[in-house]
């Protein structure tokens, strides 16, 4: 099965190892993975800041690129970006042709862990020794219903102990431009979660979204806490083989 890996802008620019790990995992389930260098951003920052019209051309590019690629599914290592693609039809209420194409793409777009489980992955190929707390990123959890898949996969990573923290499902406070519009509030919301992480004495705080993790990592570092942040894909594929 040929799948297109949606390389989110944060993965592309800040955290490329997530993308490489995601590709390895998809290949592990027998997929042929392609990426598209012309794909830039899903458009969510524009929609969420009140500029949906600026997001339209980006959505069209993503739809176009996917259709050209001949891939059967679009897989994002991000519940947030996948959810944004699921919301594309809402942008094209007045353009029936694009609406139909947007709906077709939405039906074929998945968050990584959802897709891996669908593909029948029962045991993650990676190994990682440590205590890991999971943060449910809001859009994956509430827009796409991703709750059990990442937990089930993490539990199969050799050596990994998954620790359920209180407030696992609470928002981290990132919220896109919210994080810089209302920085004190954004940080206060993060602290509510991080207090629980600290209490659980874990080695790693993991999530399915790089955006939450960059925000949480920034706060963990500023508070001087010895907790690493890692993306789901990095843990599931950890130590699989090095290609850097």
């Amino acid at each position, binding site marked *: 099965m040929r799948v297109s890996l949606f390389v989110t802008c944060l993965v*592309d620019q800040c955290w490329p190892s997530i993308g490489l790990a995601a590709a390895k995992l998809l290949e592990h389930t027998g997929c042929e993975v392609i990426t598209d260098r012309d794909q830039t951003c899903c458009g969510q920052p524009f929609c969420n800041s009140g*500029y949906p019209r600026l997001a339209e051309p980006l959505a069209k590019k993503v739809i176009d690129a996917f259709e050209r690629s001949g891939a059967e599914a679009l897989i994002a290592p991000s519940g947030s970006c996948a959810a944004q693609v699921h919301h594309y039809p809402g942008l094209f209420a007045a353009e029936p042709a694009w609406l139909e194409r947007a709906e077709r793409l939405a039906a074929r777009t998945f968050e990584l862990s959802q897709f891996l489980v669908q593909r029948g992955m029962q045991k993650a190929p990676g190994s990682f020794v440590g205590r890991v707390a999971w943060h449910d990123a809001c859009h994956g959890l509430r827009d796409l219903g991703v709750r059990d898949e990442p937990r089930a996969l993490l539990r199969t990573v050799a050596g990994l102990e998954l620790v359920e923290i209180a407030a696992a499902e609470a928002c981290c406070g990132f919220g896109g431009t919210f994080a810089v519009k209302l920085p004190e*509030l954004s940080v206060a919301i993060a602290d509510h979660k991080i207090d629980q992480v600290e209490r659980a004495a874990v080695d790693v705080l993991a999530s399915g979204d790089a955006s939450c993790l960059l925000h949480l990592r920034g706060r963990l570092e500023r508070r001087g806490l010895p907790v690493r942040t890692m993306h789901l894909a990095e843990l599931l594929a950890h130590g699989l083989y090095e290609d850097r």
Partner: protein
Amino acid sequence: MAEHLPMEQFPANARAALNDGPQRQALRAATNLFDERRATALATAPDWQSWRETARAVKDHTLLHLDHYLEQFERNAIARGAHVHWATDAADAVRILLDLARAAGKGPVVKSKSMTTEEVRLNEAFEHAGIEAVETDLGEWIQQLAGEVPFHIVVPAIHKSRGQIAKLFAEKVGTAPDADAKTLTAAAREKLRVKFAQAGLGISGANFAIAETGSLLILENEGNVRLTTSVVRVHAALVGIEKMLPRVADLDVFLRLLPRSGTGQALTTYQSLLTGPKTASGDEGPDELHVVLLDNGRSRMLAQEITRQSLACIRCGACLNVCPVYQQVGGHAYGSVYPGPIGAVVTPQLVPLARAAQLPFASTLCGACRDVCPVKIDIPALLLHLRQQVREGSVAVPAAQGRFFERLTMRLAAFVMQRPRLYRFATALARLLDRFAGPLLHRLPPLSKWRQGRTVPRLGKRDFHTLWRERGRK
């Protein structure tokens, strides 16, 4: 007089609230408690999802035919001996209620908790007119004594500890400064009973209005609504037009949803169904019953399909309790009568959008509000709609600080993102800047804002696509 904070200054209000340690502690404990109670109540309600669907379908139907049901309500209420008044806006409602208070003669006005009377700023109008209006819900009375507006739509004094209330009562009521909860409530009861006995007019809101019988349903736990609506000679209820339900039978599903969502109760202690004034001397109820139906911007929400669902709200407050923003800053920071997620949706549609332009942005869009809403209002979608109204809409919003800069940045970013080659060039440039001019960039927005409490992430040495190509070559 109780004043709202300026809603135009949500960011400053929020910062101030974050610096109020005791308030944050009380708020966290209370919102956790209410959310836990709600979760416990839901655990014994396996049909919850189908109840939500049913309730929403009833609301959608009623709102689509609201003209019909309002007129049916009026006919039936009048047939049962009630008086029905139509208030286009807050000023109308205030005028009608002031006239009723004057006509009712001497004695105070007793009020049972009503957010709609807060919306029209009724207490303020009474104060100006020299009429004593006394809140009889304990939490609301505490807020009145403290000179504060409600902090929460269901639990007005949710942010106050027992100690703070004891101190307030010692000053205003004369109880001991270390009085326990039982003593405090007994003192409140004693004071308020006198007011009930003296009052000429009782004012309430209503949770539901029933078109087929012209009835009102009011839910409560303290018995003050029952007193307000039965022992006082004249009663007036201020009711938003969206409170309409077609039939008495429709109450079934809403009575399952509202108490569970609001306080985690299977049912509130009291449910008062008012159908007309008393007709015989042995009857309970007021001699005169007035229903004031309030529009005040609601028909505007009704007019558009996308905003119509805002009117399905049954004011349970569940979305406040789960909201990460409300949990941190509480109700007053919003500067609006209705705080929290639903407040951020309703307020910009009730007051001029330019005034409330900050509120749709006072959210992380986490969606917890949508998940708990008993009538399935898509609050994040409405927030996005309002954000677009503020940013791309034709409504003139005063140039808030940095707004021009934001619009420019967004346009520029979108321009670059649409051109992959330009995007690659721009990100390569950013990488260079990050490496060689990082400290300078960190002093400029948005990174200067990000740095408040967080370290700044560095860009990868190479981007994904470069690494991907290298991997392909191996």
